């Protein structure tokens, strides 16, 4: 990459299904950066889950509220922030447990944040009480590629 830093911004109304727009925008950025196809898939799922959470939980499906996505390219990684206007998740978040789910001791949902953490290289949730919160994810380029 010629330039050390450059950033792409996307904003979406809070409507379920629109996470696909973020997925495809991010995939396009990932391909330009040279990520291998399996990492693009990881990125797509992670960003989709973060957007769905922002739409559903953060902005409570209020379409007038915007979900913001920033994609920051550095020479060795892509950093993604998914912003909403809510307070962010309350920690600790219950870890999904398939045995409990199959025994109906845990609701079937609740796998999004777990998947985000499993699929990207860094994931954190940042709450900025005055303005909202964001999920921050970093996915690094494989070393051999640079």
């Amino acid at each position, binding site marked *: 990459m010629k330039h050390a830093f450059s950033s792409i911004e996307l904003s979406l109304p809070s409507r379920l299904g629109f996470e696909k727009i973020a997925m495809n925008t991010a995939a396009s950025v990932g391909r330009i950066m040279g990520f291998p196809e399996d990492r693009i898939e990881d990125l797509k799922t992670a960003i989709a889950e973060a957007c*769905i959470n922002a739409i559903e939980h953060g902005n409570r499906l209020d379409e007038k509220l915007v979900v913001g996505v920033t994609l920051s390219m550095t020479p060795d990684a892509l950093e993604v922030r998914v912003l909403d206007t809510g307070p962010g998740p309350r920690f600790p978040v219950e870890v999904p447990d398939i045995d409990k789910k*199959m025994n109906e001791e845990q609701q079937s949902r609740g796998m999004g944040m777990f*998947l985000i953490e499993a*699929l990207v290289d860094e994931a954190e949730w940042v709450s900025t009480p005055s303005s909202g919160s964001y999920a921050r994810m970093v996915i690094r380029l494989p070393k051999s590629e640079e």
Partner: protein
Amino acid sequence: MPDKGTQVKMEEIDCGAGQPITVLRFIGDITSLSQAAVLGTYQGLPDTAKKILIDFSKVEYLNSSGIALVIQMMIAASKKGQTIQTFGLTPHFQKVFTMVGITRYTKLHPDEQTACAAFSA
């Protein structure tokens, strides 16, 4: 392809093992908006359906809420003593299903033939 939500095709096939197998072929997306397509279709199956084959090969987008619907279907099937086999997930979604542990309850087969054969194994 234009966005068509979730579509399901239901079929009865015979893998050569005698008892017919009910196939649910999902097409499009499996998300929180697919409740009717996934659970509705499942609930509409006749009680005689004991072997259920799920075809994910035409699924383009699957998210964690969609996976939750698949888990709900698996719970219902296990209560009814039905067996589920699946095939057609992309390598990425095979990984995702493995991450959430679904592979502890159903096998993800590479293709229809292998999945079919697994019913008589």
